[in-house]
């Protein structure tokens, strides 16, 4: 193994879990996420020399997102019909596997499934900012870099995403009061 490869494994591969989490929430399918992550790591490796500074995670997630968009375009071309985001709710439910926490009560598991399903049903531009902020805990500047939009857009998307998720969550609470605390 040469020096470049070694540096890559030490700097970039520790962020593989974050890349996978992000890919899972973008593609909403484990097998698609696998393909996206593999392609992203290879692209990252080829472009490794261009990496400057210490924002390795943001850099890798940017590549993951680009790979996801490329894969999505290819899928759409093959299918000939674009897949509208909003209609994916039912599919989204099926592809997100829940790993039950042994300590959790069944009520908690219900809630977990509910949130997973509601998140899956959000438009992609809402889903991605929510995952990057609340799960990956990135700041606005990093999210702007990953999603390739100005910071102002990150802020308004986050606000809309939170409002939308909250609204759906409340609706769910009315329908299934036990599922939401």
């Amino acid at each position, binding site marked *: 193994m040469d020096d470049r*490869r070694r540096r890559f494994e030490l700097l970039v591969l520790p962020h593989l879990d974050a890349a996978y989490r992000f890919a899972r929430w973008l593609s909403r399918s484990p097998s698609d996420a696998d393909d996206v992550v593999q392609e992203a790591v290879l692209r990252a490796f080829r472009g490794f020399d261009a990496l400057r500074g210490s924002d390795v995670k943001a850099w890798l997630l940017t590549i993951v997102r680009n790979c996801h968009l490329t894969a999505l375009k290819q899928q759409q071309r093959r299918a000939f019909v674009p897949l509208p985001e909003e209609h994916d709710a039912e599919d989204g439910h099926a592809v997100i596997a829940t790993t039950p926490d042994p300590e959790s009560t069944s009520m908690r598991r219900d809630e977990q499934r509910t949130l997973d399903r509601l998140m899956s049903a959000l438009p992609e531009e809402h889903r991605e900012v929510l995952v990057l902020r609340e799960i990956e805990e990135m700041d606005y500047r990093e999210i702007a870099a990953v999603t390739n939009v100005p910071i102002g857009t990150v802020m308004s998307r*986050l606000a809309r995403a939170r409002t939308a998720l909250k609204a759906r969550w409340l609706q769910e609470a009315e329908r299934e009061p036990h599922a939401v605390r």
Partner: protein
Amino acid sequence: MPCAEAMRVQAYFDGEADAVAAADIERHIEGCAECRALLDDLEKLRTALRQELTFESAPAALRARVLRALNAQQPIKPRMQPFWKGAFSGIGGTAIAAGLAFFLLAPPLTNPLLEDLVSAHVRSLMPDHLIDVVSTDKHTVKPWFAGHADVSPVVADFADQGYRLIGGRADYFDHQRAAVVVYQHGPHVINVFSWAATKDSVPKDATRNGYHMAFWKTGNLVYCAVSDTGWDELRRLVQLLQE
């Protein structure tokens, strides 16, 4: 019609407001019921997402597949052991350790302590390296350090605040056996290193390779929390540990 300050309240909530702006927003929130409700909603949604949303680590099969794909990118020198073959065995550890040593010597060093901490953090993320004593009970973790590390740090569980104690580890570090308390925060691992202070000054908080490092000193122990969480989230744990 939402309050005109809603966006600034959100920025404040996300830790994006500087001290002056934050004080200003706090004053506004005191007098604005709508923004108080907004802040409450934001907090509830965040807590729910961090506690309930499903997130999985990269499966071992994917990790192996990625390494194979990387190997196919370039010819491997004949005598080198393919990395993925040893990735989950002791040989892998040695290969990584050798790699780490090389890496540490290679670039111009700014502060070797920071590089050491990041290396130790990254090493801990590899399979089977994270925890020597697995426990969510501080009464198990704390005494364990007595026999395995040179210092006895603060150990506490903050599961209710989103920082779950998952165990402890001893790392050889700065010529001593440092104690490492390990926390889980959402999908993130936070390593809290502690070692006996050898000088008065405490390093400035820093970011390396995508990992934040927050330093503080209590008594004659220096602490450093390392993670890829957000700054706010890391400093929240530091605050809890200092209380």
